[in-house]
């Protein structure tokens, strides 16, 4: 039974937090830790996360052997009794999106440029020497989630739409997008580059491009100028944004919410840990799309420690 949890949850004061603490199976690092445990919380074996294509497989085989060696009475279906769920810690509750929120899935990927200036996937030599051994990880896309509250996505739907009319984007939504979801540190560490940035770092506009009895289609355009020069190893990111949204008037829901951000990163996205660092101006692409999945999804990266701050970013003027 595969279970993925944020190691922060071991600090929650509820039955789930207590279970994780007692099992001792959570590590608050990027890779985290993998264990095979019983439903009662007995730790059987640790998975080996060395990315060599063999170690993880072998460790899982060893873990399954440990499971098989348990007495049959412990392993048979229905052998263990799991109590009631109990009240959840409010901090855990805050990890779920507000009612009727729109949840987007977010993927980001670093790119290089070929001799013609076209985007290409990164290779080890693209990175500063200290981190080249991790290049395979940086080459992959990183995934995150974004919450858009009901009030915000409803504000994106004009009451009397006409082609060419502009739709104001709620400031909190634009700020959340820029501060939390255009951060090149995503997937590279726990650091946040722009969470306390000044208001107006992203200029996002929405235009009605087509209206029919069934749908309203909108185009999103924008730019962001993100800069964290206060750190010893600064970083900046200057993406342009383009997106296509379709609102189904019958379903009263967005059926398309595809947004793309593409621009150049300069500096060290993850600061002193150097992860993902390259020299010069290097491209980063980010896509947003409807999560379109039933069931619970992980909280956005920006909401894990303070969902209120994520949902209602403090709007402050620049210098």
């Amino acid at each position: 039974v595969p279970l993925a949890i944020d190691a922060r949850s071991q600090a929650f004061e509820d039955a789930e937090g207590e279970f994780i603490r007692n099992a001792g199976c959570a590590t608050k690092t990027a890779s985290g830790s993998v264990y095979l445990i019983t439903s009662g919380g007995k730790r059987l074996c640790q998975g080996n996360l060395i990315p060599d294509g063999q170690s993880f497989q072998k460790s899982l085989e060893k873990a399954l052997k440990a499971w098989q060696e348990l007495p049959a009475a412990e392993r048979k279906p229905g052998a263990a009794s799991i109590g009631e769920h109990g009240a959840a810690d409010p901090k855990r509750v805050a990890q779920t999106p507000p009612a009727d929120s729109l949840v987007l899935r977010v993927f980001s990927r670093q790119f290089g440029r070929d001799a013609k200036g076209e985007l290409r996937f990164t290779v080890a030599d693209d990175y500063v020497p200290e981190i080249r051994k991790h290049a395979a990880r940086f080459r992959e896309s990183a995934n995150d989630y974004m919450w858009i509250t009901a009030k915000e996505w409803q504000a994106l739907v004009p009451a009397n739409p006409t082609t060419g009319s502009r739709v104001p984007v709620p400031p909190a939504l634009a700020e959340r997008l820029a501060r939390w979801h255009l951060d090149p540190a995503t997937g590279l560490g726990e650091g946040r580059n722009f969470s306390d940035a000044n208001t107006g770092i992203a200029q996002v506009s929405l235009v009605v491009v087509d209206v029919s009895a069934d749908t309203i289609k909108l185009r999103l355009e924008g730019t962001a100028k993100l800069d964290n020069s206060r750190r010893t190893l600064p970083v900046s990111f200057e993406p342009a944004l383009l997106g296509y949204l379709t609102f189904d008037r019958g379903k009263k829901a967005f059926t398309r919410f595809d947004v793309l951000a593409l621009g150049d990163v300069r500096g060290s996205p993850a600061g002193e840990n150097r992860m993902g660092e390259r020299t010069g101006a290097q491209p980063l692409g980010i896509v947003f799309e409807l999560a379109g999945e039933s069931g619970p999804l992980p909280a956005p990266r920006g909401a894990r420690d303070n969902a209120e701050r994520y949902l209602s970013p403090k709007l402050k003027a620049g210098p």
Partner: protein
Amino acid sequence: MRIRKIRNYFAFPRAFSPPMGLYPHGQPHASFPPSIREEENPTMQALKTLLGLVAIAGILVSQGRTWAEPKPVAPEQFDKLQRMIKPQAGESLFLDIRWLLSVWEARQRAAVEGKPILVWAGAGGPPVAVC
């Protein structure tokens, strides 16, 4: 003492003094020949102005205030870029697994089905969410 003398020479408010990093050797006096320390030299006046402008530009650049507009995303490239950014076939295979996110739900299912739990716990909840 010599550093202070050179700073006075530039006659900038302290806030606009060139950061030490702008000097080639971290020692401002080392990069200037003795002749340019003559305060009434007209050539020196011009040099002062030039160096001052360079210093201010350097500070502004270092603070990220000189921005060019990002190149717009070409609409005809949208679909291709979207495909390139998202996970490729065979990449991020752990995302294909239907991971449970609730400890209680996982325990219930494991107990009912007579199976162990494979728990992956890290910053953010890898592999379904990144740090």
